[in-house]
């Protein structure tokens, strides 16, 4: 998505080259068991002044720094690499630091919720442990046998290309928490774990493919994927997640027959 400013929102007459400013309302789903709301989640709306170049994260910063310091959310690099600030913005999982306000219709209140399916700790911060538990289960590390070579493990460009797409994962959980099968009971391994297994299963240097396929050949493994493509749509890195899951399925079938 290229950031082209076609119709500046709010101010009709802006100078050439000037960044337009506008008021934007953020509707936040908040949860703070220590507040008077107790164990109930509640909606809170804030109206802040934003600029045409601002992202949702900038609006959240403004709320936290200028309006309500109790608002809690995760963010680290703020540039779409660390994967800390995945959240549900206007009903879709996105990274707050990669979503421009002008792209999510700032004329209406923008809803911001924590990602679904994981236990909320406070406001937009969720407990990522279930997510990382299934990530650890697929053994996301190189498995080899024999003596360690004295130089690099060589690989052709084609061999590298085979799993290039799934190396892009930043473990933000946007895919897993967009999956309706994961929402049901959270037992499904989830797209992110399968994507990271795919990264090693199709790596020519790795020898643990059989073990990883065995792990994912679970009642809660790849066979629970219903190909709804929510994960592919949610991925902020543009990984073809559903395709990767299908490739793992195919590898299992060719192994079994």
């Amino acid at each position, binding site marked *: 998505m290229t950031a082209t400013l076609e119709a500046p929102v709010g101010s009709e007459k802006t100078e050439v080259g000037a960044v337009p400013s506008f008021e934007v309302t953020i509707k936040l789903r908040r949860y703070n068991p220590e507040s008077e709301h107790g164990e109930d989640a509640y909606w809170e709306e804030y109206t802040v002044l934003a600029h045409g170049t601002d992202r949702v994260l900038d609006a959240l910063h403004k709320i936290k720094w200028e309006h309500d310091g109790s608002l809690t959310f995760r963010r680290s690099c703020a540039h779409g690499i660390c994967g800390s600030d995945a959240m549900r913005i206007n009903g879709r999982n996105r990274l707050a630091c990669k979503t421009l306000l002008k792209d999510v219709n700032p004329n209406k209140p923008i809803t911001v919720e924590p990602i679904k399916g*994981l236990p909320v700790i406070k406001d937009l911060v969720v*407990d990522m442990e279930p997510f990382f*538990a299934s990530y650890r289960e697929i053994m996301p590390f190189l498995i080899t046998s024999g003596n360690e070579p004295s130089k690099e493990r060589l690989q052709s460009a084609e061999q590298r290309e085979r799993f290039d797409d799934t190396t892009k994962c930043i473990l933000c959980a946007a895919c897993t928490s967009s999956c309706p*099968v994961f929402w*049901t009971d959270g037992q499904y391994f989830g797209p992110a774990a399968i994507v990271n297994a795919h990264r090693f299963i199709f790596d020519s240097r790795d020898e643990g493919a059989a073990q990883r396929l065995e792990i994912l050949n*679970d009642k809660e493994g790849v066979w629970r994927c*219903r190909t709804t493509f929510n994960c592919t749509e949610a991925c902020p890195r543009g990984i073809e997640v559903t395709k990767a899951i299908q490739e793992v399925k195919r590898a299992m079938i060719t192994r079994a027959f």
Partner: protein
Amino acid sequence: MSTTSTSSPLAAPRDPYKRQKTTRSNYELYSWVFMRASGVVLIVLIFGHLFVNLMVGEGVHAIDFGFVAGKWASPFWQVWDLLMLWLAMIHGTNGVRTIINDYAQRDGTRLVLKGALYLAFVVVTVLGTLVVFTFDPCPPNALDYQLPSFCFTGRP
């Protein structure tokens, strides 16, 4: 600047999470492959069935007790219908099973729904199989006007 509302019912944010023990087996793999394979076979069986019943000869007007009885007099149609019954029942039951797995949130609900599903499967499949194999177009105690004409061809 800020307004608060708790009117809409929101899910409890701190639902506990626990990962159940591993359930590794080829069961789901075979069930996935079966769905694809049986689907392809069912397309042939069902459209063949519809074509023979609705298009060939007099078409839909030819269907009556005698038409069905005549079909089941031949082992070919017995096998065809039996295969169609079994594949459709297993295919459908397996599909509903996955839907129950996806949508039932509590183990109790899942158990009850699946129990009802499997009971329905057994009743329909057993009854259907029984009918296909034991069907007698000319039962000895039936009244004459209820029987198809071919029941009388061998009689004096």
